[in-house]
């Protein structure tokens, strides 16, 4: 094996990472859709199926956005689930303690304040992450591993591992209600994805994030305050985890210190499947959303086919390897 072809192959891979992934994923989605339509028939296109897909996607979607932001800068955020559970428990505690007996204006105010408090907790965790990573120079995996354990510790310590449940109507609506047939949670996902996409593609801040992901040192030497950018980025990542917390606690009508832990590696899987470079610098929100739809389509179809959800996990893994290998084969073809 000589080195020259390997290098040009790599260049081709980088070139393909942008538009190539979206093309591959779109093709894959169409192929899956056709295959499942043949296997399952009309039931696959029923309103019920589509709606249940749309209900299940937002949690993982918002958490994956949170993971994506950290990945784009060349980092990683392992604390997203723990952050979401901690801020979910904060909201749940406030709701269950102050809502009973309140009426009218206070009733609305408490719900708004509770959610605001949840976001405040998430922002605090983000500040801690950002400070330790950007200003103390700790590697993101270690720092967020620490905050993950810390957040989970606070959540378990304060809740004694108990579930807090029973929320007022409007909160439950966020996770289970529909607007003109569209699940409200899906709207929340859109309300998260759109600003993130705009921020990444159309603002100087987004450009700086991609630059840091490609080469942090070069970005710093070109006059960008990389530390401030990273701090802000981890706060944003945490705030997205806070948004996921609201959707999660609304959908389950409860909060707990250990909800959704199996999502952690799945968010990385979704992001990488969506074309986000795990070493930073490349990746678009559109790719991530496509990946999420693919994962959800497989999961829902397997459910309709009465196949184990664990087989779904295995197929997700297989798809990830297959999609990641496409640039390799595409690069080889012309030779």
């Amino acid at each position, binding site marked *: 094996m000589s080195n020259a072809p390997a290098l040009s192959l790599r260049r081709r891979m980088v070139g393909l990472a942008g538009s190539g992934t979206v093309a591959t994923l779109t093709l894959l989605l169409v192929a899956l859709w056709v295959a499942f339509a043949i296997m399952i028939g009309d039931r696959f296109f029923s309103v019920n199926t589509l709606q249940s897909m749309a209900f299940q996607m937002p949690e993982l979607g918002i958490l994956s956005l949170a993971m994506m932001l950290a990945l784009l800068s060349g980092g990683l955020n392992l604390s997203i689930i723990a952050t979401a559970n901690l801020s979910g428990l904060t909201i749940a505690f406030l709701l269950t303690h102050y809502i009973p007996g309140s009426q009218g204006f206070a009733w609305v105010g408490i719900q708004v304040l509770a959610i605001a408090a949840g976001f405040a907790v998430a922002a605090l965790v983000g500040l801690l992450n950002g400070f330790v990573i950007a200003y103390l120079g700790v*590697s993101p995996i270690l720092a967020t591993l620490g*905050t993950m354990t810390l957040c989970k510790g606070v959540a378990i310590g304060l809740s004694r591992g108990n579930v807090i449940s029973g929320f007022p109507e409007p909160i439950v609506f966020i996770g289970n209600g529909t607007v003109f047939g569209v699940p409200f949670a899906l709207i929340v996902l859109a309300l998260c994805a759109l600003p993130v996409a705009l921020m990444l593609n159309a603002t100087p801040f987004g450009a700086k994030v991609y630059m840091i992901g490609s080469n942090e040192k070069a970005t710093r030497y070109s006059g960008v305050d990389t530390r401030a950018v990273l701090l802000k980025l981890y706060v944003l990542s945490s705030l997205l985890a806070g948004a996921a917390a609201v959707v999660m606690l609304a959908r389950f009508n409860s909060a707990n210190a250990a909800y959704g832990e199996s999502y952690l590696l*799945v968010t990385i899987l979704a992001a990488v499947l969506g074309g986000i470079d795990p070493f930073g610098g490349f990746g678009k929100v559109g790719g991530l959303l496509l990946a999420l739809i693919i994962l959800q389509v497989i999961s829902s179809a397997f459910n309709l086919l009465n196949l184990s959800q664990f087989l779904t996990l295995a197929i997700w893994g297989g798809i990830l390897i297959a999609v990641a290998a496409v640039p390799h084969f595409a690069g080889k073809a012309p030779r």
Partner: protein
Amino acid sequence: MPESAIASFGRFRRSHEFWLLMVILGLCASLGFANAQFLTMQNLFDLLTSYAFVGILALGLLVVLIAGGIDISFTATASVAQYVTLSLANAYGANWISVFAIAIGIGGALGALNAIFIQKLRIPSIIVSVATLNIFYGLLIFFTGGKYIYSLPDWFATGIFWFEFEWAKDSSYGVNLQILALALAFLVTWLLLNRTNIGRQIYAMGGNADAAQRLGFHIFGLNILVYCYMGVMAGIASLIQAQLAQSVAPTVLVGKELDVVAAVVLGGASLMGGVGTVLGTFLGLTLLAVLQNGIILLGVSSYWSPFFVGLVILISVSATAWSQRERRTRSARR
């Protein structure tokens, strides 16, 4: 001779390992002072036995990290190796040599699969191992239905117990299977990394893969070896874990991968490759073990245990990063 000893001690004093050792010694001293039970043989043997599983996996991961890769599929590999090996042992009979041979074979094969995906398809190791974690685990639960195995062969359930001696009236200690496997894993990994040509090649590859390839190192072969080694360690660890738990639970190991990552990176191994020592991994593992054990012995509610573990991880990694930064700026000024 003494001069070089002083020089090497000076180097050690500035190393990451030295700071870890100081933290651990401080922690041990205060815990020993606070609770007489902490510094007893009983506690030492219990700690070694219960942390052997994480320790053996950490050694495998250390080699992968030094080589410049990462593997987080090892918990799934361990689950598969454990389930298949002990099912076979139950069905056809086996002995110590054959169970370990089967587990090592399965672990090695799954590790090699990772290496092939990484090297032949040129997919980054983090992507491959996230994917294979789901593939191995998903298929295992799909085919087994997630059923536990409670009846293990008698000789396996009994385990081994060497060099038995009595410490107090009712308690006797000896080298059990877990401690023996942990000690062997440390010895072999240390020999591999520090006393063999291949070990030096692994460091070189992790430091700069392109340069290593131009020097004529067989990169593909080295990668196969590294990921197989991780798989073999997962196979061994899975058996001693089953022996300790006295059952095979296919769903409990997956999810513990970050505990292992924590031990190795606390020990100073870098995710960028080329950096890391067996001593560091030992100290990282010790810090986590002493911390978790100490919190229990201090009578802190077990609900708060993860909080303190997280706090110590954050403080220790922050302090290390800070001291390195200080040193860099000081040497830059000079």
